[in-house]
């Protein structure tokens, strides 16, 4: 299992924790600390899933998500959106811009792992069908 996961998160410590937890599960992990780098990594690395923070300097998570969904090559790329603003409005916006799942921050690594596994499995099914 060497699925590639991109973490777009500006807090290096939060990013490190998720990064380590995912690697332990055998995922390949790449990180980006802002939207511009994140978008570039998507093109270069073609990840299987993105863990996307909402609050980012410059381009925020909603915009990144919207852009990815507007691009034919990333329309179905699984996106797990995370935000410290655990408000319903953020969840709704997240869903509206096309995120597959939404998680309130700070989230437990175990929770992130299970969501990631579920999203990847769903994608697998979709590809089969």
């Amino acid at each position, binding site marked *: 299992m060497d699925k590639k996961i991109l973490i777009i998160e500006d807090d290096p410590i939060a990013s490190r924790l998720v990064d*380590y937890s995912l690697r332990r599960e055998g995922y390949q992990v790449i990180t980006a600390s802002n939207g511009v780098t994140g978008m570039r990594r998507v093109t270069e690395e073609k990840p299987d899933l993105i863990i996307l923070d909402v609050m980012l300097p410059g381009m925020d998570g909603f915009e990144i998500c919207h852009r990815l969904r507007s691009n034919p090559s990333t329309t179905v790329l699984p996106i797990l959106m995370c935000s410290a603003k655990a408000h319903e409005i953020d969840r709704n916006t997240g869903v509206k811009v096309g995120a597959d799942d939404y998680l309130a921050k700070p989230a437990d690594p175990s929770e992130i792992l299970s969501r990631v596994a579920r999203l990847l499995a769903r994608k697998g099914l979709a590809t089969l069908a």
Partner: protein
Amino acid sequence: MVVKICSEQLLRKQIKELGKDTDFLSTLLENLMGHAVVAADLDGNIIAYNEGARKIYGYTPEEIIGKHNIEIFFPGESVTGGKLRRIIHNLRKTGKVSCEEDKLRKNGKRFPARILFVLTRDKTGKTDGFIEIVEDLTERKRIEKRLWDSMSNFHKVVDDASDGIIVINRQGIVQYVNPAAELLFGRKSDAIKGKQFGFPITSGATTEVEIIRKPGDIVVAEMRIVETVWNDEFAHLTSLHDITERKAVEEKIRQIDKTKTEFLSNVSHELRTPLHSIGGFIKLLLRSQVPDKETRQEFLEIIDQESQYLGNIINSLLDMSQLESGRFEISKRPTPVRDTIADAVSIFKSLVRHKEITLKEEIPEDLPEIEADSGRLRQVIINLVGNAIKFSDPGGEVTVRAEERRGQELLIQVSDRGTGIPAESIPHLFKRFYRAEAKMVRGGAGLGLYISKQIIEAHGGHIWAESRAGKGSIFSFTLPLDGKGGETNGQEDSNYRRRPDSLKAC
């Protein structure tokens, strides 16, 4: 019939003797019970006197009839001054005189009266006397005065009312404007009266209206309209209560409330994030999920760093709570500033290495000692250097420099080559809860610079910021060399117990 009293019988008898028209007189006497009716001959000698007259004047008929002239019912000056004579003269010429005069009761008291004099004639048609019918106006005058007083009281109340009062007729035309309404509209009554009232008229409802006196000069008023009668016609009575100030205060309170809510939300986020990281890494370590020794070391360092970060936020909150309650104090001792700066800067050694930032110190060897609270000073420097590092990109440079200026003060500056601060943010930097980059991770609680400012000012110094977009920022502060100004050694000097300026004006 009650009127049939002895005086009347006496009157009838006498009238009969005089050969007068008894029917007419009896009718007069019976129907004018509330009036004093007196019949007299042409010289004014009284020949008849009714019950009403007894009540009004206080004399019994026996005391009067055939014994007195009508002069007895008039005040002295009316008689001596010839007023009464003139009235009788007039009466004989015209046959009828009506007037208002003061009259006199038996007890000597005067009273206002309406009088009607009518000439009487005998059967041959010859003038033989007159009848005087008197209405006592005392009660009416009293009521009129009371009415007048209450009217003028009413006018006074309306004139002095702090609320604007406007009367509008059915057609929506302004009929009356009180002085308070003139003030509200910024126009004289004459400029409003007769004009259409500009606001929708809804009886019974309280509405909020904005009165634009002139562009930019807007008064907010609470308007209440009730139905009334004005000059016998249906009208609307509008009262306008100026709530401009209340609105402004409400807005201010709303702002403060919003700031506090945002602050709480920021702070809880700022506390939760590091706490969560600490928990996450500790769990990995506890479950022996980090076999690599170097990674274990890395995680322990992260935990250490995060708990320090948490500690800093909590210390800021404690400082804040002291500032808010006016218990924030500094205690000054001779302080080698050079050492304090070096000590503060040293804690960033590993962080700058990690972020690949160069941290420079330009502190003269001979920097003098000053009276200061070294712990608080250290706190300010840590805050400024920490910010400079936070806003610097890898490869950046942060410099701490100090100099003695004009033998009067120390100038300490922390500069970076980071992204700089937008010009519009600079005036707000030292305010409570202000965060220039709200979206930034680890934005802090927005207290650091505010607390730094309080500390520096408590030392009698100043703190300020300069920045150029793309070039970086310089944060500077001064400390007086003589240690004067600001707080002295923990003394209870109320001048230096700092209260946040926000309590005065937010």
